[in-house]
């Protein structure tokens, strides 16, 4: 833990370098508001990073904090909506985190299993408990008083103040208390510490408890910020927190590191994301940059360690780390920007910028929407900026993207919210900044919206209920009114998923011979659907049809059915009519799919946004794009979506 000053300052130099770099590259970056934004966006990661710093210095690892975060958030939200006072709800969430952490610590210490395994177990268990606890639905409708936690004090966000206080405390604990000292000793040489009389087991348990506690604190703050809690929040957050600690110089070998390093690490990650957003770099490239910085930091740390044993580090070598990391960061950023520029952002003549924020950009559905939107934007001579999180479940990330767009001062935002409740506060922020938000594809929860005074401008998207009903009626007719059916749901609690499921059930309502024998979620994912279908096939030998709430899941189910050799007995119907599904319908492997017209949504979204901003024409409350069932008879008439533009709308 004894380090010369230059080593300590190296990461700080990298951070400062990045800030300067982004400041030069983007006029929106170096503003007080945006810098506070960066801090807020780094806050959750930074808080989780405190726990991870202790754990990693002690020679362990904690993979469970992301899941614990979700569970604690739900507990806090649940306590609040069931009428508990705000302090009690906060205490409840934080206490659950502490208990989860203590359990991890007990299991790894007394079960004598590596912390990697113990906390991997906790990660899965806590996530599962969170889903069961919440019935896989987000909890919202939190009292206004709780929102104060995500407000400002003298213009400084409470989140930032909390982080500052926690870091000061953590620094003191790590450097001035027995707990801190033993953390280093255990990580540096557990044998020696034990033989010196350190109660290693007890302190390890405390350290994991601390990590869980930090996850609890982060959960409370995040719940306040999103004004809702969801069982899906925090996926991958454990890895981001580990990355922050490692970039900050905490050695995965244990025995070395400082909390302030982790804070800088978290800020570097936050700065990179925010700055890349400011430069409109596609989010897909973020991982490349952050990953590059992470690996470079560790490689150089190793190099320094090897150097330690032999010769003292002198001359320029002392600054080698900062130089190389800096160069790498610059190259990554410039490279990313370069790719962005060469891929060609459409210039605008009128100076209007519309932002398109889908749930993710990882499927043809969003791709088609984006493409049609860009086409329309080009025709109307406006600029279209597309930004998305890597995963549809990463609500907090989408929230951050909206904050960043507000900073950039875009003229309108087209949003497909990845959480029907959690994104409400972000929309509120946009409203406050005078930026209209138009919803695409997915609605937000009206109650949650009303509770914070959010004005829902319009919804442009398919009639998912009607789509489900069409599929239900078609399937009932196909089966002749008799048969066992399984439903593979999307993420439950999602507006779209619920509408499709409910629509489907209403479609088969008139056919009493049709029985739904199972209804399970596969999280919209093909691989999950495969597993779910395998289990369904085992359990229901007489199954005759499967309805999947999207085509990805339908295709996963088809593969499982094929593998079980039951293609002739079971028909599958999906939703979205993505190209892969169309191919399968054509070849007869899939019965049909409800076609949506994402390109329509993209086109109409841009059109209405521009009409509104340019000419003050308010869009209708609801613009429903058509749905259509595609089967083997009409599949050849169905031209994949981009052409599906409907002339009558113009």
């Amino acid at each position, binding site marked *: *833990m*004894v380090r010369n000053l230059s080593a300590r300052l190296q990461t700080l130099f990298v951070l400062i370098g990045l800030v300067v770099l982004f400041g030069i590259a983007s006029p929106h970056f170096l503003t007080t508001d945006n810098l506070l934004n960066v801090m807020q966006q780094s806050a959750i990661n930074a808080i989780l990073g405190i726990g991870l710093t202790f754990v990693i210095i002690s020679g362990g690892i904690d993979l469970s904090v992301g899941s614990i975060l979700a569970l604690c958030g739900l507990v806090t939200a649940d306590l609040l909506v069931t009428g508990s006072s705000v302090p009690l709800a906060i205490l409840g969430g934080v206490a659950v985190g502490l208990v989860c952490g203590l359990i991890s610590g007990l299991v790894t210490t007394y079960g004598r299993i590596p912390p990697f395994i113990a906390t991997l177990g906790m990660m899965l268990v806590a996530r599962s408990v969170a889903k069961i606890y919440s019935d896989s639905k987000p909890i919202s409708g939190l009292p206004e008083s709780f929102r104060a936690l995500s407000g400002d004090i003298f213009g400084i966000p409470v989140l930032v103040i909390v982080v500052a206080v926690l870091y000061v405390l953590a620094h003191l604990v790590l450097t*001035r*208390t*027995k*707990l801190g*000292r*033993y953390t*280093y*000793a255990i*990580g*540096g*040489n557990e*044998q*020696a*510490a*034990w*033989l*010196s*009389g*350190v*109660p290693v087991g007890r302190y390890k348990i405390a350290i994991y408890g601390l990590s869980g506690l930090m996850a609890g604190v982060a959960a409370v703050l995040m719940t306040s910020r999103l004004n809702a809690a969801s069982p899906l929040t925090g996926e991958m957050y454990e890895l981001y927190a580990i990355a922050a600690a490692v970039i900050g110089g905490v050695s995965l070998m244990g*025995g*070395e590191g400082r909390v302030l390093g982790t804070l800088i690490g978290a800020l570097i990650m936050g700065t990179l994301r925010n700055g890349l957003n400011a430069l409109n770099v596609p989010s897909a490239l973020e991982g490349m940059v952050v990953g590059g910085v992470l690996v470079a930091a560790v490689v150089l740390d190793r190099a320094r360690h090897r150097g*330690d*044993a032999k010769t003292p580090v002198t001359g320029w070598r002392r600054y080698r780390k900062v130089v190389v990391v800096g160069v790498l960061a610059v190259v990554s950023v410039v490279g990313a920007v370069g790719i962005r520029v060469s891929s060609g952002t459409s210039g605008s003549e009128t100076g209007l910028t519309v932002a398109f924020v889908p749930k993710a950009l990882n499927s043809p559905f969003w791709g088609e929407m984006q493409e049609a939107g860009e086409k329309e934007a080009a025709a109307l001579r406006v600029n279209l900026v597309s930004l998305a999180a890597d995963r549809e479940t990463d609500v907090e990330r989408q929230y951050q993207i909206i904050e960043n767009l507000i900073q950039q001062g875009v003229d309108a935002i087209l949003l497909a919210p990845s959480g029907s409740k959690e994104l409400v506060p972000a929309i509120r922020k946009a409203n406050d900044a005078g930026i209209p938000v138009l919803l695409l594809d997915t609605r937000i929860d009206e109650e949650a919206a009303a509770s914070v005074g959010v004005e829902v401008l319009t919804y442009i998207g398919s009639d998912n209920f009607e789509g489900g009903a069409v599929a239900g009626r078609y399937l009932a007719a196909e089966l002749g009114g008799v048969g066992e059916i399984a439903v593979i749901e999307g993420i439950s609690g999602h507006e779209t998923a619920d509408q499709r499921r409910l629509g489907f059930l209403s479609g088969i309502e008139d056919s009493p011979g049709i029985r739904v024998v199972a209804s399970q979620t596969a999280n919209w994912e093909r691989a999950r659907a495969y597993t779910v279908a395998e289990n369904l096939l085992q359990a229901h030998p007489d199954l005759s049809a499967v309805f999947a709430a999207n085509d990805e899941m339908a295709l996963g189910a088809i593969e499982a059915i094929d593998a079980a050799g039951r293609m002739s007995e079971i028909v599958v119907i999906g939703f979205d009519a993505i190209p892969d599904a169309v191919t399968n319908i054509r070849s007869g492997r899939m019965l049909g799919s409800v076609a949506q017209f994402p390109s329509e949504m993209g086109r109409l979204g841009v059109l209405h946004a521009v009409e509104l901003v340019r000419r003050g024409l308010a869009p209708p409350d609801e613009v429903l794009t058509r749905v259509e069932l595609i089967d083997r008879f009409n599949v050849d008439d169905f031209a994949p979506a981009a052409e599906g533009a409907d002339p009558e709308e113009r």
Partner: protein
Amino acid sequence: MTDPLLRMSGMDKHFPGVQALTEAELEVLPGEVHVLLGENGAGKSTLMKILCGQYAADAGEVVFAGRTVQPSGPLEAERLGLVMIHQELNLVPGLTVAENIYLGHEPTSGGLIGDRSMAAGARDLLQRLKCDIDPGLPVAELSVAEQQLVEIARALQRQARLLVMDEPSAALSDTEIEALFAVIRDLVDDGVPVIYISHRMPEIFAIGDRVTVMRDGHTVGTRKVSETGVAELIKMMVGRTIAERVPKREVVLGEVVLEVDGLSGAPFAQPISLSIHAGEILGVAGLMGSGRTELARAIFGADPIDAGTVSVAGRPLSGHSPAESIAAGLGFLTEDRKQQGLVLQCSVTENISLTSLGEVSRAGVIDLGAEKELARNEVDRLHIRVASLDQELINLSGGNQQKVVLARWLAARCRVLLFDEPTRGIDVGAKAEIYELMGELVEHGVAILLISSEMPELVGLSDRVAVMHEGSLQGILPRSEVTQERILELAVAVGKHLGTEPARC
């Protein structure tokens, strides 16, 4: 007389702080089992590791089969036909016998490993050793003796022309040793001479043709086994009376402070009882693997015991953990300070205060000033040479590192100190300072258990010496009987023959 197959002459090797070899020599004739004998640290292993390419000698010449050789690494040594089988076997437990034998030398055809030809080859090799282990079994399922045979088979696969075996019998039963000896004889008849490192007297006479004795990095001499005896060999190992005298302080002994009664557990062949008085130094002698370190660990509560009690100042310890032992006044200076003593990433101060943090903190918060002072006192008292109290340990010399660990125990004000090889790997000056310190400690009524492989140290400092051999306490020699010869006699278990139970003392 036949020409020697191997001649090593003028071998020098220096390690930081230690001259491991000084003009050591060795000659091995074709067709013999050559025993290499010497106390711990006499230089046997170093010499053999130079031969097999693991160390580079500072000076000296190795002539093997008429050619001067200088293997740059174990692989090259293997190519020359020089193969060493280490005491800790070098097999991959999860791989099969055949895979282990061919590891790194897999027969391949078209990039694929030929499993069948490998199994067949392995079977042939094992047959040469007259053993019928299934080549398809994972090594983890074999006994130690069988694993050893796999190692030998591997050596044969490498076309070994000279085989070095480092204490191969350490973990074997008597019948297994007999079987091993039969294999060794066959090997020698097949033209592969064996260098056999051991300090078990009976084995030397059972298997050896000639024996070379080493001491303090020198070669003392080579004898034909048939023309020598135990007495002569022990005398060669011990040498003339040691020049460097360690001064013993005369201290009036006090009450018994450490009482060990009927301590038994896995490492011990029989229950162990002993006691140490205030102001007394009880030496513990024994060769490697005799159970000395295990004894200290068991007393300290670092390893589980099956039965027995440890009492400090009349109060038995109940919990059997290091933390409890320390609270009762025990301290344990481990043999391996890097692995078990120091936290290298932490500073001098932090290492010294580790055991005494409670004394310099209130409600879990450390008083950094008080901590510094505690460390400063010990650093001054022990003359630890540091640039600063915040210095990292990695840059300290071995002697200073050892003093830092000592300082930790002194700061904890222990009443009984268990010292395991306290002067290993440190320079002469630091050694003298540590002896001086031990004298001071006993004058203040501290009791010391001193485990050491250094005869002068044991003989010079101890009030009594307990001698261990293969997990049992052979006897405790009173001061009047403490001589090197007497200690070695007990340590190598003279009078113990293969196949007989150890005699009680």
